[in-house]
């Protein structure tokens, strides 16, 4: 079959209509177990039979697959190791053999078929239209990824929206850019390897890390982005007409250390490590801790704190940083009487050991102000929503 832009556009519209229909009705067993896998599977088979085989640069294709394999292994290793910091929980997926087969059918088939279809559609047009079709398909796939039902009829705070955008939309954009690029310069294999192997880990591991949303959002965005940069660099090297300086400029190895440092700094700020920073919001602990200071908290248990230590403990919706003035034990549980240094009297309620987060081991002056200003903005926006009902 000759390349046909018209056929490609027709199929893209079919995919768009299907994606739209799948969002406007309730996802039930029939859709998940029958319609969705069959639609994507059947479409990919039709395209495999009817569309001509493309010829790619074999060396580039091999290199891209190797880079992708490295990226997938790094992703899984970083994810597994993170559990040592954030603890593990049982995997909600059904990890039995039958469960795995079912998940491959309901999730794996659509994932792989979509990437195959992307590759076939992009390569069914002439070179000058490849990028346009790649962009259109990427946009449609991103739109299909969004769960519109979550937002219709619900009111969300700013933070919830930021979480969803960071966890779903931004990683979807990063992956779709990567997979469209590999579909142009290689074939469907890199995208299928990436998607299938990273998901396979979720389907078979008996335990998974209790990763905060920020950690998974960063991983899911940064790794496809770095992989994209490496593949682009590799492609430039193998392209005979590329200027040498341009090739050097696109070498992602120059920025990898910086990216790693930034990621570690973000994770530290989010409290994912055994020590974490918090901003002091009030002056109750003057002259030890002032408003706007950063206190470095070491996470610990009740046995590790004593009278005189400054601790952070949980209350309903916020945390408090005060000094322990008395430590008691009742029926095996520890209780603490705490007091702010500047307050005249101890805190009204005793602190149960379950409320303990950690103790202050270090302080840094003034660095906490930006976080306090941001928090003030967030609180004001939420109050507006409460008052207006929006």
């Amino acid at each position: 079959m000759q390349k046909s832009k018209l056929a490609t556009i027709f199929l893209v519209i079919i995919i768009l209509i299907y994606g739209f229909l799948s969002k406007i009705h309730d996802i039930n067993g029939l859709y998940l177990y029958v319609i969705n896998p069959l639609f994507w599977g059947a479409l990919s088979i039709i395209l495999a039979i009817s569309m001509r085989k493309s010829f790619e640069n074999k060396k580039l294709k091999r290199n891209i697959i190797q880079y992708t394999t490295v990226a997938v292994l790094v992703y899984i290793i970083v994810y597994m190791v993170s559990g040592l910091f954030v603890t593990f929980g049982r995997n909600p997926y059904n990890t039995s053999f039958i469960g795995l087969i079912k998940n491959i059918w309901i999730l794996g088939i659509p994932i792989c078929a979509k990437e195959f279809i992307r590759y076939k559609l992009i390569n069914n047009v002439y070179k000058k239209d490849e990028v346009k079709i790649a962009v259109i398909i990427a946009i449609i796939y991103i739109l299909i990824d969004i769960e519109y039902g979550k937002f219709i009829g619900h009111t969300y705070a700013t933070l919830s929206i930021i979480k969803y955008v960071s966890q779903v939309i931004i990683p979807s954009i990063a992956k779709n850019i990567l997979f469209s690029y590999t579909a142009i310069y290689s074939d469907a294999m890199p995208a299928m390897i990436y998607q299938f192997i990273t998901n396979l880990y979720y389907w078979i591991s008996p335990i998974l890390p209790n990763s905060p949303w920020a950690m998974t959002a960063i991983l899911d965005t940064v790794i496809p982005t770095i992989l994209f940069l490496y593949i682009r660099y590799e492609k430039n090297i193998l392209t005979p007409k590329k200027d040498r300086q341009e090739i050097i400029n696109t070498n992602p190895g120059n920025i990898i250390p910086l990216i790693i440092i930034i990621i570690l700094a973000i994770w530290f700020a989010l409290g994912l490590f055994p020590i974490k920073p918090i901003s002091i919001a009030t002056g109750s602990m003057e002259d030890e801790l002032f408003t706007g200071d950063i206190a470095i908290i070491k996470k610990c248990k009740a046995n590790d704190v004593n009278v005189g230590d400054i601790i952070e403990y949980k209350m309903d919706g916020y945390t408090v940083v005060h000094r322990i003035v008395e430590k008691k034990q009742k029926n095996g549980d520890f209780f603490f009487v705490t007091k702010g240094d500047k307050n005249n009297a101890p805190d009204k309620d005793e602190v149960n050991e379950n409320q303990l987060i950690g103790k202050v081991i270090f302080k840094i002056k003034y660095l906490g102000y930006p976080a306090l200003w941001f928090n003030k903005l967030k609180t004001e926006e939420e109050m507006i929503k409460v008052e207006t009902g929006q």
Partner: protein
Amino acid sequence: MKKSNKKSRAIIVLAILLLALAVGYAAFQTQLLVSGTATGADVRWNVHFTNGTKLYEVANDGSKGAEVANTRGTVSLGTASTTGVSHSQTATVTVNLDYPGDEVLLETVIENTGTLDAKLTGFQVSGASNGLIVTSPTNDPITINTDVIHKTNGTCTAQFLVKWDDTVPSFGNSTNHQQAFTITFTYSQDTATKTAPTLTHTDT
């Protein structure tokens, strides 16, 4: 050729590292801190307590009464904001009970806004001590509501009796009869259901 060898070697090293991690985790599984259902599973999973999780008085016939005042008890869902839904699998419950045998009813509403069916596998209560007991509404040990919490806004309700053990003379700390505990639910994927959902069922 050299660059290709480097990548191949990197793949082999990483694969061995991954295998070593998997074997290490299996060998040291008792030392790993594993509790509850992982909150870091992929974005297809979102099963959580909702703001409908509240404390109620127990009516004379044992049924659910009016919602309690804040002075009697509160429920905190951790990451809940003033507007919007919570996304927590753990609820922190604080109760003020007045005398031995005093009780309130905790009604939890669990919602599944993910894209896969889920079923409850258990509840875990921690931090309850010093005279506080948490049971099913019939005073039996907590049972699991095995109904499937279907995806896309399917919900499931479970009730618990929170009472001051009448064989224990003291309750709470020295200044008030107040105690706090946490209740966490665990869930897993349900791959058995293939038809349209039947909705809420109250655990009694």
